[in-house]
Structures are given as C-alpha cells and as structure tokens.
C-alpha cells in the first residue's frame, strides 16, 4: 500500500468520525453537555464519565462531541466562504490579466496582512465576539490563499490548446472559465479546502481560547482549554481531551488533503 493510500484512508476515516460525532451530538450525547452536577465535579475519567467531568460536573465527552459541531461548523462555513470568494478572484485575475490581475494581487496582499486573530481583534472592537466575528476573521484570511492557488492553476490552463480552441469557437472569458478552467482546477481547490478547513479549526480554537469565539453556553474546544488552565495541576484530563480533539481533527483533515493531492497528481504520488 503506497503512502497516499494510507494518508487518504486514515484522513478520511478520522474526518468521517469527527463529522459523525458532530452530527450525532445534535440528537444524542452520553449526558446533557450543559447539565451541572456539582457533587461530581472534576472527576478523572471513569466508567460513568469516559473523559471525566469539568469544574461544574458536566460530562467532558458530551461537551467534546457538542464542541465538534461548533468547531467544524465555523471552520467549514469560513472555509467555504473564503474558498468561494478567493477562487472567484483567482480565476477572474487569470482570465482578465492586466489591471484586474494587479488589483486582485494587491487586495490579496492587504488581506494577507490580517491573520485571523488580528482581524478578530479588529472585528471584535466593531461587532463584539461571536460566531459571525470568528467566521469573518477566518474567512478573510482564506481569500488570498485560494486566490493565489486558483490563479496559478488557472493561468496554466489558459495556456493549453483546448482553451485556444474554445476561444476560436467564440466563447467568452467567463464561459471558458466556468466550462473549462474551473472543472480543471477543481482537484487542487478540493485539496486546499481540506487543508484549510484544518487550519480554520486551529484558528477557531485560538479565537475561542481568547474569548473571541462563540459565547457560552455553546460548547467550544478552545474555551474548554481556556477554562482548564485554572485546574491544570488538579485536573489535567480537562487539558488533554479538548487539545487531543483539536489535534486529531486537524491531523485527519491534513492527511485527507495530502492523500487527495497525491491521488489527483500522480507525479507527486510516485515521488513521495
């Protein structure tokens, strides 16, 4: 079994499991993730609470499952918006060239100067914390990433013979982009979607760690880590569970992206 097979399968399985846990949490969790039980607070992992309980006796496994919905939800929406806008800008730049291309690249430069945390601080001043702030901050940073990749890929396609043929057939730039360029660069975009969703999960966790993500009582992995700091010495399981959840989810998405890349680009697959 070659390396990309392993990446693809392992990454796919992890991603499906995390997404499954997020979906299941909407209808069932082992316990109510908001139900307090002060008598059972700060319990280490045991038979009744597999991942232990937190400072007010909530079941950590249930919060982790519900948190998966929050993290994945914000990450997927932010990546989808950033990916769509970025790709649109990228293929437009490639199709039009000249002034449009320079404008897009400059816009990219400006957006790239605002890492998610920075835009979240700026947006936090404007809108206050919350899901919209987090999604906008993360999505904005995705735009230049997708614009750069899709532009580079699209430019390669524009040099091909079949595009020249389509042009001679009288098709407009927009139509050629939609009918020929976009389908051809889609594999690269899909690979990036997987990898960037992973990065978005990390950003979302960072934002909620700082208190700039979703507000309580909506569970979030980042805020769990932030709250765990107080009990670092007495209840280390509170630090381990959310951190592992983040790391495993991101690892899965990265492996999936790598596997897909090697699958769609045979040249790389052979070399790896």
């Amino acid at each position, binding site marked *: 079994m070659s390396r990309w097979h392993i990446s693809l399968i392992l990454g796919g399985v992890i991603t499906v499991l995390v997404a499954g846990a997020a979906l299941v949490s909407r209808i069932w969790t082992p316990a109510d993730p908001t139900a307090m039980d002060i008598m059972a607070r700060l319990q280490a992992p045991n038979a009744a609470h597999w991942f232990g309980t937190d400072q007010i006796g909530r079941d950590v496994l249930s919060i982790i499952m519900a948190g998966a919905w929050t993290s994945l939800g914000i990450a997927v929406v932010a990546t989808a918006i950033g990916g769509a806008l970025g790709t649109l800008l990228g293929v437009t730049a490639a199709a039009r060239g000249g002034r449009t291309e320079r404008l897009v690249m400059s816009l990219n430069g400006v957006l790239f*100067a605002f890492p998610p945390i920075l835009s979240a601080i700026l947006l*936090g001043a404007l809108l206050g914390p919350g899901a919209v702030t987090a999604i906008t901050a993360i999505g904005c940073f995705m735009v230049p990433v997708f614009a750069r990749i899709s532009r580079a890929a699209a430019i390669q396609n524009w040099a091909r013979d079949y595009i020249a043929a389509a042009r001679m057939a009288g098709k407009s730039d927009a139509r050629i982009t939609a009918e020929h360029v976009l389908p051809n660069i889609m594999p690269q975009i899909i690979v990036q979607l997987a990898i960037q969703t992973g990065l978005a999960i990390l950003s979302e966790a960072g934002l909620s760690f700082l208190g700039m993500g979703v507000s309580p009582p909506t569970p979030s992995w980042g805020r769990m880590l932030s709250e765990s700091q107080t009990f670092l010495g007495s209840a280390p399981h509170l630090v381990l569970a959310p*951190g592992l959840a983040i790391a495993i989810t991101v690892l899965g998405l990265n492996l999936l992206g790598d596997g897909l890349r090697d699958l769609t680009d045979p040249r790389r697959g052979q070399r790896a």
Partner: protein
Amino acid sequence: MIPTRLRRLAAALLMLLVTSLVIFLAIEAAPGDPAEIMLGTSAQADTLAALRSQLGLDRPLMVRYAAWLGGVVTGDLGQSYTYGVPVAGLIAERMLVTLPLTLMATVLAVVVSVPLGVMAAARPGRAGDGLASVFAQMGIAVPNFWIGLLLILGFALKLRWFPTGGFPGWGDAGIGAIRSLVLPAIALAIPQAAVLTRVTRAAVLDIASEDFVRTARAKGLSRRRALWRHVVPNALLPVVTMLGLQIPFLISGAVLVENVFNLPGIGTLAYQALSQRDLIVVQNVVLLFAVIVLVVNAGTDALYARLDPRLRGRA
C-alpha cells in the same frame, strides 16, 4: 532594473496605505466614545466635549486619519485611553518581550527543522524520513497554546524547571527573563518547525534531482559533499520564503502563547486593550502587526530575487 524596484516600492506603499485606512475606519466605526471611557459614564456633557476637542476627536474624519498617519511617521501614536501614557512607549516596552520571544522561536524552529528535513530527504523512505514526516504532521496539527499548557503541566508544575508564567523583566543579567521565555518559545516553535521540516524535505528532494547535482556527483563528489555543498544551499531558498509566509502565523501564535504564559507582550497588550476598549492602542498594535507582515513579505520577495539570479529584474 530601477523601474521594477520603484514599481514594487510604490505598490507596497499603496498597500500599506490601504491597510491603514481599513484599520482606521474599522476602529472609527466601533462603538464606544473614548472621552466617555476616560471619564466614565457619569461625566458632564461639557467636560466630555472639552476632552473630545482636546483629543482632536471633533475634527473631520479625514483630518484625523491624516493626523494619525503623520503621528505614525513621527512616532507619536497618541495617549492610551486607559493607561494615560503614550501608546508608542507602551508598544516599545511590550516589544521587549514579544521580539525576543518570536526570535527565539524562529531560531529554534530553523535549528530543528533544517537538519531534520535534510536528513529525511537524504534517505527518503527510511526510518529518519518516517520520523520527520510524523513530526511534521503532528506539529502542524497541534495548537501552539495547547503545547504551551502541556509544557506548563510537565516542565513547570511537575518538574519545576521553569516558571509557570509571568515575566520578571530584563534585570539580573536577563537570566530570569530567558528562563521565562524558554517554554513559550518552544510552544511557538513547534508548529513553525513542522512546516519548515516539510518545506526543507521537499526542497532538498527537488534540488537533488537537478542536472547540476548529477554533474557534481559525476565529477567524483561524495553523496554527502554534494548534498551539503550543492543541494542544501539551493534548497534554503524555499525555506526562506516559507519563513516569510509564516509571519502571520507567528504573530497569531505569539498572541495566544503570551496569553497562556501571562507574558506582558504586544499580543497581550492588544487583547487587553480590546477588552478595555482602549481602541487607540488596538488601532496602533493592529497596524504594527499588519505592517510587519507586509514588510516581511516584500523583504522576502526581494531577498528571493537576490538569492536566485534567475529571478533578477522580474516583476
């Protein structure tokens, strides 16, 4: 040559201008009256008006923007609304923590990742390569603030080798300061090192298959000599580029890691200023970070062009 450079410089300046305008307008639109924040909600209307005019807040929008830009150029960033001290001094003081922290992390990341990446590429598919790729995958996936928490748990709470957080200042020959920066620097360095390991490995593999390397080998150079004399120096190009591209992540990471270790750096300053609605501090810190990213990117491009003769004179 010169027109290309000038055009680049002009584009970079324009980008800086647009960036500063975006930041200024966002902060302008943000709710909260600075005068009210400084004097409290119970202040008299005429006192508030007097302070507003003293702060120059009664001037038109564009005049204030120009005044801010002028201040940025001359180093006068205004007064902090909550601390009542000049913002420039506040930033400079906090820089004494953030700058050493990010430098230590970057050096650490390079020192770990370059040898690891070269080792992985020298014997692809062997144990060393496997180890490097596991490190790279794990390092990219773990959040740096979580690494920070784990380091505190292991090396500060259990082993007691390092403090759990805080910063004693640069007195006392800086030993206390360095000690309190070690764990945060490691936390910040691991994700960076993971990315750089990957890039180094790919770059070395890429260069190793070039004709000039084959020529060097055909001339009788040993594998090892060809690797270190011809392959590695050329492979460092993409590594330098990646270092530049990683700056936004380094900055985000610093904000988080400073928070975990309770370090009085720029990241903590921005974060605290936001929660205290000290918007003039937020405005200037965000601009500072954005300028660093833009300048480093422009610098990386220029350096890249210098290091790779094939790119000279290209836009």
